[in-house]
């Protein structure tokens, strides 16, 4: 392969980042996310075991369901005994809990935060609103199905689901992780264009890079 050809391939790998002004384009990375496969089956099994027992949750209350996270954190339900801990930054978190309905404004932030999490990363969608829009199913400003926009690992139905339901959801997530079924990170990369077009359909003021590294 000559150099020109290499450059071409590299350019194809680049994202257009058309949404951001010319001046700022140099300030954002324009690399396309790539699929990263597990290193080794057994090693991955070990890691999945550890991951399932050390779930770092992004402290981002996207919707009203976030209210249910408080009892979960505190003494009544104490999620820490399951190895679940809140993290204040998406860089370090591994679980993203979408707390119910997502307005268009919020979904933009959800996408950004999700993309900034370092995989493997998991999404728990909380409440009916994330499944079918719930009571906001015909709202002009709310999405109906979350997994059009980001891959979801576990849905917890209810309006609102109680902390007990949440714990059950977490346990389901742990099982899935240990079974190696939580590849949302790679799913997102593989169907990146599909997710992007879905996101861009509803987010009109797209003033961010196409992939928020």
């Amino acid at each position, binding site marked *: 392969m000559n150099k020109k050809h290499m450059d071409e391939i590299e350019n194809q790998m680049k994202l257009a980042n058309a949404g951001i002004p010319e001046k700022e384009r140099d300030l954002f990375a324009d690399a396309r996310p790539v699929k*990263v496969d*597990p*290193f080794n089956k057994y090693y991955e099994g*070990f*890691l999945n075991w*550890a*991951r399932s*027992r*050390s779930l*770092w949750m992004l*402290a981002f209350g996207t919707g009203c369901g976030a209210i249910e996270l408080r009892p979960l954190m*505190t*003494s009544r339900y*104490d999620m*820490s*005994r399951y*190895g679940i*801990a809140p*993290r*204040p*930054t998406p*860089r*370090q978190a*591994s679980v993203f809990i979408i707390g119910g309905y997502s307005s268009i404004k919020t979904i933009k932030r959800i996408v950004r935060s999700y993309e900034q999490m*370092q*995989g*493997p990363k998991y999404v728990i969608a909380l409440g009916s609103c994330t499944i079918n829009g719930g009571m906001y199913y015909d709202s002009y400003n709310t999405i109906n199905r979350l997994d059009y926009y980001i891959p979801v690992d576990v849905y917890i139905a209810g309006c609102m689901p109680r902390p007990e339901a949440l714990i059950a959801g977490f346990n389901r997530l742990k099982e899935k992780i240990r079974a190696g079924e939580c590849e949302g*990170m790679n799913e997102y990369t593989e169907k990146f264009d599909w997710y992007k077009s879905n996101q861009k359909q509803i987010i009109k003021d797209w003033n961010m890079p196409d992939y928020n*590294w």
Partner: protein
Amino acid sequence: MSLATQIFYAVISVTVATAYGLTLGGITRKIYARVHGRFGPPVWQPFLDIIQTSGRRVSVSHGNMFLLGPVFRLAGGLGTYLFIPVIYGSAVFSNFSMAGDLLLVMYFVFFGQLGMALGAGQGGHPYSPIGIARGLAQMSTFELPFALAVIAVAIQYNSLNITSIVAAQQGGFMNWTLFTNPLAVVAAMISLLGMNMHSPFSIVLAPQEIPIGPPIEMNSGFLSILQTNRGLFAAAKLVLFMNLFFGGATNLLEMVAKTFFIYMFSVFVGAAYPRFRPEQSFRFFLKWPTIAGILSIIYIAYLGGTS
């Protein structure tokens, strides 16, 4: 002792210290949980966390300095630990303490902090420099009482050599600095609160204000290095305090026992107090512990002390 043996011993020493430090971290979380009325995570949770963060498949880097920041940090922790003789009379745990004395240890502490500050700085996130600015400012203030205490100790034992300081404290607990020079220990223990950055001095990470501050951009493997260092560095500090003020240790068990109690001091204080504002914290260190430190020097140097 050949270099290979020495390195081999150092590896053992470091592993033990890291494991111990991490366990202490787990115990801390447990105690905090119990204070909150919770059950709390298992004691080995820090190990799981480290495996989890090391096991991330991807990471982002903001540049070379960002990449080296955690390396500096862990190198600082390792170095600090390796320049301290851990167990008095033990070849395995004497580390590389022949390279320098107490002053070396005190200054090597900064190696990691400076490197980490630089790495975090390159992250480009505004919270990093805010946290670092707080951290450096607080460090400058708690170093003062600590330095005064160290000077008092150096006067007392007429040495800056950690091994000889420990040697001088052998032969009964009444020979410990804790009892021979209590003011210095007061000053040093209060500055230990600052070093350990538990409440009320947790202004650097301050999750509710500047979401964990400096390492906000740290992720995956970078974070796991930092977590490792947390364990090791905590152990190093505790060992240093044990050596200077609590008679050192002649075996591993004594080391564990003593350091555990030293650590629990800051944990209990941390569990009981809310956080200071930065300037309150700085002022606090410049006030009471500093006065204690000055008094200890006066006591030792000018009033005849214990000698």
